[in-house]
């Protein structure tokens, strides 16, 4: 049932009074949204301002790992990919037999500066090749055959941040839909900042506010709706202000991912107590003509990550933030008939931040495979989650992951 404590009497009265006088929202915002009032009245301590922050970068569609972290000393690589292999001369070496393509020159720079860890062959047992299902497995951190339906990040919130009501959202996503990492059975303060401009959610926010104010004096349940709407709109307003007032001094490239990360930077700079941000870059499902498409995407990723890291460093926020990429699966080692690759299994991923040990973890993928065979994972993705939970977010990983996973020496 709806918790009536969410409607403190004074707030109710204020809404009615403001509505009755036909005042605009500015007058109303003198009255804090109810959860603000509630938190303040309970005198809950604000959490540590310098608490660690995690930024998740989803590469949707299944990024081809072999053309991202390239095993260029393995002849099998060139045999498996007669048309789409990256020529040796174009590769930026990072470590024992592997290197990055030119499109990742910014990532290469981050690696050279010791701010990027590369994890090889990350996956899970009994890989599933359905986009949706495999993404669900990554986001819920479940076994391949398990039907878990809460996100691993929401379980982290349940374990580490439970208790005091929080004014700031615990998690913020900058995608159209809420990612499953935040799926929860309970109410969690998660905010979607898809594009929090005035028309971010479609429609017109000012008009919606007027509509909501129009019901502020109504009977239930209209009054309840009105109140909840005004709360939500107040949050939009607040985040909108943060994004317009906390501009970065750093130049970001013109891309969607860069814009998202720039906004994440602004929110971090504003001192929001949000612990996890989620951004996404899609289009990695390269069944045909992979070369250009993937290069563009990797370039977008690479440039955006460097800009973000630079932005954080400029404001000395870099020690507080860890960023990691993930994708639902890698792609088949052998190229297909359309100069592309089909759905595969394990793949490398990146972890970025001033706190990481810049290194390549794990071995180059084993490419002696049966015809059209798949890669075998070497590191379970939940080992990475366990590492991030324990060594970065300082939270026991077993209750979150439902099991014990070996940690990785990346932090």
């Amino acid at each position, binding site marked *: *049932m*709806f918790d009536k404590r969410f409607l403190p009497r004074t707030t109710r009265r204020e809404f009615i009074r403001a509505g009755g006088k036909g005042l605009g929202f500015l007058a109303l915002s003198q009255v804090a949204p109810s959860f603000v009032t509630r938190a303040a009245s309970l005198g809950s301590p604000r959490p540590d301002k310098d608490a660690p922050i995690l930024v998740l970068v989803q590469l949707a*569609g299944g990024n081809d790992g072999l053309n991202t972290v390239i095993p260029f000393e393995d002849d099998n690589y060139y045999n498996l990919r007669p048309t789409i292999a990256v020529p040796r001369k174009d590769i930026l070496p990072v470590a024992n037999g592997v290197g990055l393509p030119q499109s990742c020159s910014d990532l290469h720079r981050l690696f050279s500066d010791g701010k990027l860890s590369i994890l090889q062959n990350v996956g899970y047992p*009994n890989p*599933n090749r*359905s*986009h*949706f*299902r495999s993404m669900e497995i990554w986001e819920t951190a479940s076994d*391949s*055959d398990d*039907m878990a*339906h809460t996100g691993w990040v929401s379980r982290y919130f349940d374990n580490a941040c439970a208790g005091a009501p929080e004014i700031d959202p615990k998690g913020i996503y900058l995608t*159209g*839909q*809420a990612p499953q990492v935040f*799926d929860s*059975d309970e*109410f*969690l*303060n*998660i*905010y*979607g900042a*898809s594009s929090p401009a005035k*028309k971010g*959610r*479609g*429609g*017109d926010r000012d*008009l*919606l506010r*007027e*509509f*909501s104010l*129009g*019901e502020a004096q109504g*009977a*239930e*349940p*209209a009054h*309840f*709706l*009105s109140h*909840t*709407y005004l*709360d*939500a709109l107040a*949050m939009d307003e607040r985040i909108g202000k943060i994004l317009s007032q906390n501009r970065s001094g750093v130049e970001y490239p013109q891309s969607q991912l860069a814009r998202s990360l720039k906004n994440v930077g602004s929110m971090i700079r504003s001192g929001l107590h949000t612990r996890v941000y989620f951004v996404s870059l*899609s*289009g990695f*499902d390269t*069944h045909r003509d992979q070369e250009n498409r993937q290069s563009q995407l990797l370039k977008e990723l690479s440039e955006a990550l460097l800009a973000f890291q630079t932005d954080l460093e400029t404001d000395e926020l870099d020690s507080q933030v860890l960023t990691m990429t993930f994708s639902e699966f890698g792609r088949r080692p052998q190229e297909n008939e359309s100069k592309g690759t089909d759905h595969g299994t394990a793949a490398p991923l990146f972890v970025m931040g001033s706190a990481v040990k810049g290194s390549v973890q794990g071995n180059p993928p084993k490419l002696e495979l049966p015809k059209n065979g798949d890669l075998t994972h070497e590191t379970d993705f939940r080992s990475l989650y366990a590492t991030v939970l324990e060594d970065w977010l300082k939270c026991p990983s077993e209750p979150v992951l439902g099991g014990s996973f070996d940690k990785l020496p990346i932090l």
Partner: protein
Amino acid sequence: MNVPLSHIPTLAVWETIHRDDWGPVEARHFLERAGFAAQPDTIEEATDLGPEACCERFFTPSPFLQPPWVVEKFTEIQDLRQQARKTKDKEERSEFYREANQISRQTIDDIEHEWLLRASRPETGFSAKWELFLSDVWVIGKRTVREPEWIASYWKALSEKSSEPYPEFCKAFSREPAMIRYLDVDKNSKNKPNENFARELLELFILGEGNYTEFDIKEAARAFTGRRLQNQQYREYPKQFDDGTKTVFSRTGQWTGDNVIDLIFQQPASRTFLPSEAIRFYLTREPITADRIKLLGDLWAEEDFRLDALRRRLFTSRAFYASDCRGNRIKSPIEFYIGTLQRFGLQPIPLRQYSTRPLAEMGQELFEPPNVRGWIGGEAWINAGKLAARRQAAAEVFATLPMNRMNADDKRRIEMERERDNSAPFRVKEDELLSLTGTTAPEVVEFIRNQLLTVTANESFYQEISNYLGKNPSGETIEDLVITVLQSPQYQLS
């Protein structure tokens, strides 16, 4: 009718609304509540028909059948499992099982789409909503049942039995494989009784809490022993059936499960439980006085507990059209979503990221109520996060489907759907919207008043709209306005 519920005399509250009190306003209320949305042409038709004929016209029997490609999957899944059983190599065997599981999950997605399609079509939407109501009583969850064939069978049975006498319905559903699995009937045996089903039968399906004893549950459970699922089919095993004497509600005999259901229906609470649930689902969450509910229950019992009689009584009653039972119910996410599709002549997109996923974000995961009590409903449908999802879903109606960013499989699925009979558009383009709304400010205001809002919003609402539109609104302005209306608190009410 402009009379609040409390002003209708108790003896008259379930009487059919007088023809003189029936007009477009009542017709519209019927269409919005018994179905998902009222369209101008159906409002006109329903106004002419009157309440009783509406219950016939809009509830024409239509079995919910799966298309061939879904039915084929049932066999494919069984074949894969059979192959698995024959395979000695452990690794290979689990590979077969994995594939079977994967296809099962996809097939459940497909069945969900078929259900949304059924709900979104005005000719089947009313029945679909009534079945949704019954499924909120006889709850199953897809994550527990997991077997697409059983889920399909359950929904088909709902479509076929939803006009029968409720005792017959209960007997049939006590044999539905999905129900058997969901409430552990197949674990209930003579030596090791499992009371899960018997408890819910009394507490959540027929009588309600407080109308039975723990002893009744124990004894009733014994009567449902020996029911098993063998080769996907429902079977009764006489050897596992406890054929001893049982005493249920002080009546002793060698009762079978069916006997027990008949005994339960001799309890007075059986008359009022389901009608109360129907009132809560369709009419109001405010409590209705006991004497009124009792009257409704007695009338229903006289009609042999027929489900079609119950809905006819409810939807034609003076209570249903009471002034304080209109425009004060928060739409469930399914009602919000399906109603919006119907208002714009759309159909659901056959990809879960565009249909069941947004529904789950709004707080209603299809085929998966939170627990055996079903969805909580009411104010629980709304909080900041769920509201954001509703706002997003409203905007999505007018966004172009990003075909060029879609996976190959998804593209194929979309193409296939477009080629089906009676397929409808997935999204509204701006010019199509303008042909619905008109292009002048007064036309747009009338469209919103007549086709989007059930609630008579106050005049200041329409004043805001007129101000927003100005003299010569652009297409973009009209689209933004319509999205905002779909997002408004007013639109969330019906």
